[in-house]
């Protein structure tokens, strides 16, 4: 019974923080400096690792799928398979996991430390809304940065797939054929679907990580626990929402 109550309390808290953050988005322009700062932080923390993950994700897809397709003589379809997989699923999910792990954990650590050391209370006594000052810039920055990171990782992943397909002796596919096939399969709708998912994941990660940070009480030990809690909850919600967003897109015939 207590777990059920806790579940509804957290769910209600997340929805409450989300609506409050949406309300404070009206102040985004006057707080553009903070939003840009958060965008730079996210970019700085994720671009190098994002490139690496993208490159090897594309590479491993081509490595697994290429020989299998070659057995049936349809190895030229590796481009389409790698392209679509990255754009629709692997790109958004991997980028979300990267952002939750690197950026979300840092968000929770920073905000929970501010909660523990009375800095959030200090903001309140200065009549500065913590949601406007802390959550809104991180929310907007994550929702913008995640789709951009997905495009960046997709492009690098496509290249990784092309590279592996070209050098793998079981496939030996020219880069031209790979990219031509990829262009046939990956259309505008597929890219928009992936970006839509990335935006939803951005909302989930920023709200979950900020919520857990704001609710942290107790001593410094709680900061570590909050970070773990926020990252695990983000991963779970990203994967669960991925399934349901895909179902909705399929239902609407947009996938």
């Amino acid at each position, binding site marked *: 019974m207590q777990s059920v109550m806790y579940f509804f309390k957290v769910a209600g808290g997340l929805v409450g923080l989300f609506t409050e953050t949406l309300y404070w988005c009206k102040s985004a322009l006057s707080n553009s400096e903070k939003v840009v700062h958060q965008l730079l932080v996210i970019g700085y923390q994720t671009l190098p690792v994002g490139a690496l993950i993208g490159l090897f994700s594309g590479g491993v897809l081509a490595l697994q799928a290429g020989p299998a397709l070659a057995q049936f003589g349809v190895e030229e379809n590796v481009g389409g398979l790698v392209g679509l997989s990255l754009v629709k699923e692997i790109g958004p999910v991997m980028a979300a996991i990267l952002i939750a792990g690197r950026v979300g954990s840092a968000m929770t650590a920073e905000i929970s430390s501010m909660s523990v050391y009375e800095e959030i209370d200090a903001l*309140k006594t*200065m009549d500065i809304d913590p949601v406007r000052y802390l959550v809104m810039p991180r929310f907007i920055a994550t929702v913008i940065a995640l789709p951009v990171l997905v495009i960046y990782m997709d492009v690098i992943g496509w290249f990784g797939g092309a590279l592996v397909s070209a050098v793998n002796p079981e496939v030996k596919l020219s880069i031209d054929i790979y990219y031509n096939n990829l262009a046939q399969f990956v259309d505008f709708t597929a890219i928009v679907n992936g970006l839509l998912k990335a935006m939803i994941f951005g909302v989930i990660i920023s709200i979950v990580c900020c919520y857990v940070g704001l609710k942290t009480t107790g001593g410094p030990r709680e900061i570590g626990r909050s970070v773990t809690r926020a990252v695990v909850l983000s991963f779970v919600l990203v994967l669960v929402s991925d399934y349901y967003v895909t179902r909705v897109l399929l239902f609407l015939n947009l996938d």
Partner: protein
Amino acid sequence: MEHKLDNGGVINGTLGSVLGDRGKCAGSVLLDYLKCAPAGVRIQGLKRSFGSHLVLKGIDLDIDPGEIVVILGKSGAGKSVLLRHIIGLENPDAGTIRVAGKDINDPDFNKNHVLAMVFQSSALFNSLTAGDNVGLYLREHKVFKDDARIKEIVSSALELVGLGGKEDVMPSVLSGGMKRRVATARALVMNPDIILFDEPTSGLDPMMTRTIGDLIRDLKYQVEITQIVVTHDIDLTFYVADKIAVLSEGKILQVGTPADIRSSRDQAVQEFISPQFG
């Protein structure tokens, strides 16, 4: 060091040193900006419990404008909880808190009155410099359009607390006492009616305790501000207080001047203020 005023008065302590060292200009920009309109506080029947534990058991306390009131009590007496109620961070189960006659929960309260607090941990933002910490309220509320004016007031506030020229220093390299003084400067630039200090000397050495005590006393004469200090430091209490309220187990045992408290016949009060050793 002391500083002689135009009217023949003398300022001693931290502020006196600052003014004495730097001439009349130190802190004067801030002092011109401050409205110096202290407000009184009336607390009536304040009760608060956490779960089944009753922390505040009906607090009644009157604080006159411009007074330094020290709420003295041992750890766990409910001092900080009382302070958090006065600043509005906690809501009482019963009772009222009025500042200048207005209930602090009144929707218009924040438009007319400002309460500032110096936290026990100082609560400085580690990602901001000391100057940015002090100027945060002015920038976020767009009190001045001109950033140069904000910088002028920030510098002046830091000079007033004896930290002139420390605008670009990060909080991580400041000592505990310096952090408290930056936090005090941050509270001052809010142009408050009342400043609340939560254990301002906890964790500080005797010299720094004296410096903070001087600062609180100097503010009374220079800024004419109501100050509420929560502490268990008996030396600080008798050094700064105009009025002392002794709090024990969620109840006020006695309110009076330092002389009243010293001559109190209440055994619990005497046990608390008498030296523990020797």
